[in-house]
């Protein structure tokens, strides 16, 4: 089985972001960037399938500026075999990303495409589902377990009512949720080795996909701030504060 994993470079999820005062976006200059956490789970799942002897090759692809090489190198250090950077400095919409990935998938012909379920910057949660539609494959989003059964996958998904298991014939698209696995931290020798693995850089403009955005972003604004409250001294005070809130609800 050949696996294609798509990864995204985002503002590190531990960074407290700052909205630019002019409303043009979130400050990203001088901010620590890293691989989107959900993408790490996707890479880990692919590498584990190789280690179990169920997959033979893992190709990792990222779309973004030159610096996105860093997240591809992270994936190569985790155990992916080769990388592709679709290079662009433009901020692309999710549909455009999915179309570019569909072109890469057409070239690579993977049996399984793995992605993170969402990126923690735009929180869209679109690309895996779009790519499944564009490549006419079945999908299993929000995966917490992937089991290979012959030419099928049995995927357990995290859904609003709990979990559900679906069977998918390959080729298929699966998006990773947090409880799928624990991503490894690559040891230094693997990091060194990653630099010698093949990494192709190709301009996004070469794929024949219209990169222009459809939506107009008017502004990015900070959320309303919460006013600081008070500390009460006893359980009785807390109970009466709760009772006051409940009475107000009932009055509505």
């Amino acid at each position: 089985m050949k696996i294609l994993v798509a990864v995204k470079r985002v503002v590190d999820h531990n960074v407290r972001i700052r909205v630019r005062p002019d409303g043009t976006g979130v400050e990203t200059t001088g901010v620590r960037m890293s691989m989107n956490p959900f993408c790490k789970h996707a890479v880990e799942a692919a590498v584990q399938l190789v280690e179990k002897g169920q997959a033979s090759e893992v190709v990792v692809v990222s779309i973004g500026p030159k610096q996105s090489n860093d997240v591809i190198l992270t994936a190569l250090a985790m155990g992916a075999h080769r990388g592709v950077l679709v290079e662009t400095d433009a901020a692309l919409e999710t549909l455009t990303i999915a179309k570019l990935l569909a072109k890469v998938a057409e070239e690579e012909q993977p049996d399984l495409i793995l992605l993170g379920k969402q990126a923690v910057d735009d929180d869209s949660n679109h690309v895996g589902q779009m790519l499944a539609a564009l490549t006419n494959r079945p999908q299993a989003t929000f995966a917490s377990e992937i089991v290979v059964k012959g030419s099928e996958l049995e995927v357990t998904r995290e859904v609003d009512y709990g979990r559900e298991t679906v069977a998918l014939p390959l080729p298929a698209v699966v998006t990773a949720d947090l409880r799928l696995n624990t991503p490894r931290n690559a040891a230094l020798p693997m990091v060194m080795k990653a630099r010698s693995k093949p990494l192709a850089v190709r301009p996004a403009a070469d794929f024949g996909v219209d990169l222009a955005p459809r939506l107009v972003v008017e502004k990015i604004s900070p959320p309303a701030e919460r006013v600081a409250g008070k500390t009460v001294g006893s359980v009785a005070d807390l109970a009466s504060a709760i009772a006051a809130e409940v009475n107000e609800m009932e009055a509505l």
Partner: protein
Amino acid sequence: MSVLLLADHDKGELSPATARLVAAASQLGPVDILVVAENPAAIAAAAAQIAGVRIVQVVKAAETAESITNSLESLAQRYQSVSASASSVGKDVIPRLAAKLDIQPVTDVVEILGPNRFTRPIYAGNALETVTDPQPKHLLTFRASAFRPAASGNAASVESLDLSVTSAARFLAAHRTESDTPDLATAQIVIGGGVSVGSAEGFQLIEKLGKTLGAAVGATRAAVDAGYAPNDWQIGQTGKIIAPDLYIAIGISGALQHLAGIQGAKKIFAINTDAEAPLVKIADVALIGDLFEIVPQLIAELEKSGIKH
């Protein structure tokens, strides 16, 4: 200008959030509902009662992403907007449909500013994005908790559609959490427990407080990861987004991704040993102390005061 809205349902019942989604969709035009289910009759009948619904359309089919997407696709050309809840179903199908229709979707909408202007949170709710969608068709998901529910008392007509939808993926099994607490996403009061609750047994104490107040019960990602609470209780950026009138956070320090899920709460109360915890800092009312001492006393106080949900 009409809007098609996909109805969420579980165990043969319409999702209680649907009235909120109808209220949201109604801001864009007359609303028709689509129900895709193996046994759709009771779900469709409940949907027909929501004020503002014009027609309820019913497709009898398995509930996989492909069959739901194909059902929506066959109706999409009649509507200017196709919408769903920002739930695990809506998130699964709307982007798939969007790619088939070559439309960039706008998802997790929390405010409708005009016929094609929307606000959605990004960066775990730490920023809000205002977008204009100039496309001829809009594909949308709404966060139910951000909208007040539409009234009931309607009697919309129900129409069965004879569609044959196919799906390569097959549903095998559901694994549910048995619980009689209210729905997290739409509850008026939510009690949340953090990793400090310490165990699944500890969570029984949280549940007991929940019962006293008629509240839904949730948990942080760390508490779910530790196995103290089931995954569908997770509140936060990648779990459930809640907007209750009152959120009581117990033993929760307030990681960024948890705060993302509770920003819609009108009031936040906190019980925590650490007065400097981020969640205590944003709480309207906080009590500093050991949750294992406080919560049993609090249940007794509330019962004594005769509080009834």
